[in-house]
């Protein structure tokens, strides 16, 4: 269908605005690159992983710039959160579809949607004043990897539940009816049919939740203790990459500032990879 001249003008206007959206992405990547180039040039990539510790100074010759403690921190917190939130979230979605009465399932979904709307700073605040003292009584000092994992689990749980709920809803009805006709029990149906049929959707949910956990900042700053060290136990304080940026950008100058932008670039790279993988999973799910 051809467009009238008036339509064409509007169409170009829309294209221009949409193009601006795409441009913002390029801008963000460009800026992170430009700002982190001085650090990459004068500090060098290998020093970010081989230096003795993280004691950054504006002048690269006097400071040490080892990011690996923060990388390990991010990895440990994210992994811990996903180990809990993944199975719990999928079970909660299964609860909505196969175990709960309709009214309760409805209320449960509304509640999860509200839980998704609680800001990270409120989670962090609650973790700091309520959760950390409880953990301190069990194993001092309190703010620790363990507290971080619990808070992150609660924060990414709604993402997992809502997305797996949508994935389970998309399973063709005839699969489940067929299972019922074969006399499979509820749990066997779930185990051998529902989970397999929605495999792509579920892994997509976990992928996106992982992305959120990696990128989470404020809650983690407030409950993790923020000591740049590789943790020996669940109750050691840690510092994540995002927390590191949030804590130090305020006063960082010179190469220190530049190396913070480099860690931002690192984060962006990890997240972009995960988004692209989940896009691919989604398109495979559609093709099936």
């Amino acid at each position, binding site marked *: 269908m051809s467009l009238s001249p008036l339509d064409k003008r509007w169409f170009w206007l829309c294209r221009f605005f949409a193009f*601006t959206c795409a441009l913002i992405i390029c801008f*963000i990547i460009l800026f992170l690159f430009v700002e982190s180039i001085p650090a990459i040039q004068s500090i060098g990539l290998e020093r970010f992983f081989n230096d003795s510790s993280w004691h950054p100074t504006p002048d690269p010759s006097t400071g040490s710039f080892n990011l690996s403690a923060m990388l390990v921190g991010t990895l440990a917190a994210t992994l811990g959160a996903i180990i809990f939130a993944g199975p719990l979230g999928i079970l909660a979605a299964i609860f909505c579809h196969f175990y709960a009465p309709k009214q309760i399932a409805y209320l449960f979904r509304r509640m999860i949607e509200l839980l998704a*709307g*609680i800001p990270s700073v*409120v*989670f962090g605040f609650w973790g700091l004043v*309520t959760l950390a003292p409880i953990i301190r009584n069990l194993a001092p000092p309190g703010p620790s990897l363990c507290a971080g994992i619990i808070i992150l689990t*609660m924060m990414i749980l709604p993402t997992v539940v809502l997305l797996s709920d949508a994935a389970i809803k998309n399973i063709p009805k005839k699969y489940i009816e067929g299972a019922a006709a074969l006399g499979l029990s509820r749990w066997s149906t779930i185990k051998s049919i529902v989970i397999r049929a929605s495999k792509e959707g579920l892994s997509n949910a976990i992928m996106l939740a992982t992305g959120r956990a990696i990128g989470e900042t404020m809650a983690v700053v407030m409950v993790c203790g923020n000591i740049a060290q590789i943790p020996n136990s669940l109750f050691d304080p840690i510092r994540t990459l995002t927390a590191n940026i949030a804590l130090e950008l305020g006063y960082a100058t010179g190469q220190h500032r530049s190396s913070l*932008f480099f860690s931002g670039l690192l984060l962006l790279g990890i997240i*972009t990879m995960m988004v692209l993988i989940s896009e691919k999973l989604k398109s495979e799910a559609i093709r099936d």
Partner: protein
Amino acid sequence: MTDKTLSQDLICGFIWCVALGITFMFCWILFDIISHGIPEISWTFLTSSVQQAGRSGGIGPIIISTLLILLVCLCVSIPLALATAILLSEFSNSHQRFTRLISTSLEILAGIPSIVFGLFGNAFFCIICGLGFSILSGGLTLACMVLPILTRSIEIGLRSVSDDYRLAGAALAIPRVKLLWRIILPAATPGLVAGLMLGIGRALAETAALIFTSGYVDRMPGSLLDSGRALSIHIYDLAMNVSGGETNAYATALILLVLLLVINLVAQWLSHRFLYRKVQL
């Protein structure tokens, strides 16, 4: 056979426990914030200025700064998101590769951690554009951040308008733009408002992107170029840097939570009503 039913019952019980556990944690957080926050809240708390770094006094300037940041954010992001969503939903058949590029970049934009937006905003708006720590740079950074969620939900709102309208419009040879403004946008209004609410919710909840763009200053902002502290940053600062600020932090958290719950409930109500009506059409 009894073994089997027993294991079925165990699994059923376990799944109920998971659901109850999640509900319990949710109620715990809410109860904790509400019970500590309610005694502090009064009209003077909402309107008076911050004293002793937040230990006493109210949150008047903080609320004003938050609203100003939100205003800047929405003024920039709504036109962009609306135009992009119109392109994606109404004109998408004509240029497939271009629209796929746009939607993939929105997808990536949605995944970027908020602290990275903070880095970008700090480098670009505050330093390169010379806006400094100001409400304007905070609002612009937030605008970049809410763009994906706003665009996606407006697009869903537009797509859920029945194609009959578009076909009837085409049969009557109404220009598409007129059709869009006169018929499709009004029909999609509840969906659009729901999307807008989600965007506002996301912006209100944000902290990390604002710390290094809109700044910490807790005075009443005189203009958009002044630094202003948002509600979420106020909570963060009171909890982390001000000893004895916890009671006011609880009260501020309660205010923020109530605002967000109201916004989310309105969004839920609108989108469910809207989808329900669509089924009936």
